[in-house]
């Protein structure tokens, strides 16, 4: 039993998925109460999504693995401080995303050169659609835009969820996503010829 726990749960957690959110909380409580298996089960439930966010945000497999492990160890240790004002999965994502952002900033891995306001945004030499091209372009975005884009446009979280994870207003998430998409379009060459084989592009918006 860990000391300093705010929780006083006495029942053992059962692996019932009728209320996944509530079950996550029960698992976290069980972990805080000393159940050595509970946190692993909690991680097991969410690790694929957490991994996807880490990998897409960092863009490097080894760094993403390190960030994920660092984040989940941090969560393991700080679980007693979880206040319960968000979903457990949001809390886990927040810790993972912050670990990724810290790692990217610390290592200054962003490969792009900041452009002067008056310089044109570079565009890809050819239209690119492969996943490899998209991943490479994604890695060139400013990390804040990348993180928002990964959460909303790649992983499918709502703007509200992404805002909670990133701890920023929803409007900031929307702007980061919009700007990230525009830059991505430029990097992928979509802005020169946005519809392959079509002389006149449609004007369909999102």
């Amino acid at each position: 039993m860990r000391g300093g726990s705010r929780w006083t749960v006495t029942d053992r957690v059962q692996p019932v998925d009728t209320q996944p959110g509530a079950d996550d909380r029960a698992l976290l409580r069980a972990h805080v109460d000393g159940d050595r298996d509970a946190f692993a089960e909690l991680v097991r439930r969410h690790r694929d999504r957490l991994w996807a966010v880490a990998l897409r945000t960092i863009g490097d497999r080894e760094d993403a693995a390190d960030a994920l492990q660092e984040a989940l160890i941090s969560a393991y240790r700080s679980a007693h401080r979880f206040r319960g004002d968000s979903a457990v999965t949001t809390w886990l994502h927040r810790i993972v995303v912050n670990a990724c952002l810290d790692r990217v900033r610390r290592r200054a891995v962003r490969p792009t050169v900041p452009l002067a306001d008056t310089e044109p945004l570079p565009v890809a030499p050819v239209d690119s659609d492969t996943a490899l091209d998209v991943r490479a372009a994604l890695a060139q975005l400013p990390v804040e835009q990348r993180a928002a884009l990964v959460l909303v446009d790649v992983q499918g979280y709502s703007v509200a969820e992404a805002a909670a994870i990133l701890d920023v207003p929803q409007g900031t998430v929307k702007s980061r996503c919009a700007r990230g998409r525009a830059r991505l379009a430029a990097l992928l060459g979509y802005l020169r010829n946005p519809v392959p084989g079509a002389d006149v592009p449609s004007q369909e918006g999102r």
Partner: protein
Amino acid sequence: MSPISEADLDRLADYTAGLLDQRERERVDALIATDPVWRDAHETLLAAQPRLDAALAGLGAERLPVDVAAQLDAALVREGEPAATGTPVKARRSWRRLLLSSAAAAAAVVAVFAGVVALSNSGGPTGSTTSNGYRGQGGGAALSAPGRPEDLSGGAATVLHSGTDYTPQNLSSALGAGQAKDTATGPHAAAPNAAPNAPGGDGDLARLDDPQALRGCLAAIVARRGGTPSVVDFARFQGRPAVVVVLATGATHRIVVAGPACGLAGPDELYTTPA
């Protein structure tokens, strides 16, 4: 179109997302109405949206690679271990439970320090382990708890019971065997785990839950293919129960897929990747 500046593209992006205040929006309205560069940029940015959606969707889902999962699980287990030396009581109980119950074994991961190179080593179960205590939910690898057997000096093989249904296409990427980065996506990604105890599933591999039987299996594989087993996954291959073994030889890897009869009269090899 003529490209516009980075700052103008940000402004245009906010405009298309409806995020500008009225005054700024009216300014951009005027630019689009009067400046061909802005008009073209606006039109092409709008037109690019479906293609962007498709490109981002094409990144596909990601499953945590088995090797990363094993490292993560091991780190979490270490985090939970008491500072005192010795195998935790609970872990020892779990190891016994693992041996006694194939149902438990199907959802557990064991770190076996089997000295898999020096397979002639004889000894009892050589790894401490812990079972997760919960039924898996398709998560594959669970906890692994490295032990410190004193009588063994060989390499360590992580034993998993992921239940993943592998194919020749997803084998390398799914096991993270030093192949191309970040490739466990797309149409060849490993299928979600089968239920570990489904009929004809992992239970067909119950014989290999016995460490001696597993050693015999690995010995047969190593005798044929060489290398050092680094990962052993009780899984499936093209729908059939199979043990997937990653053999490391220096910087290269080979993945061997063995059937349930592995070790009885050879490796019962179903498939192998090139070395």
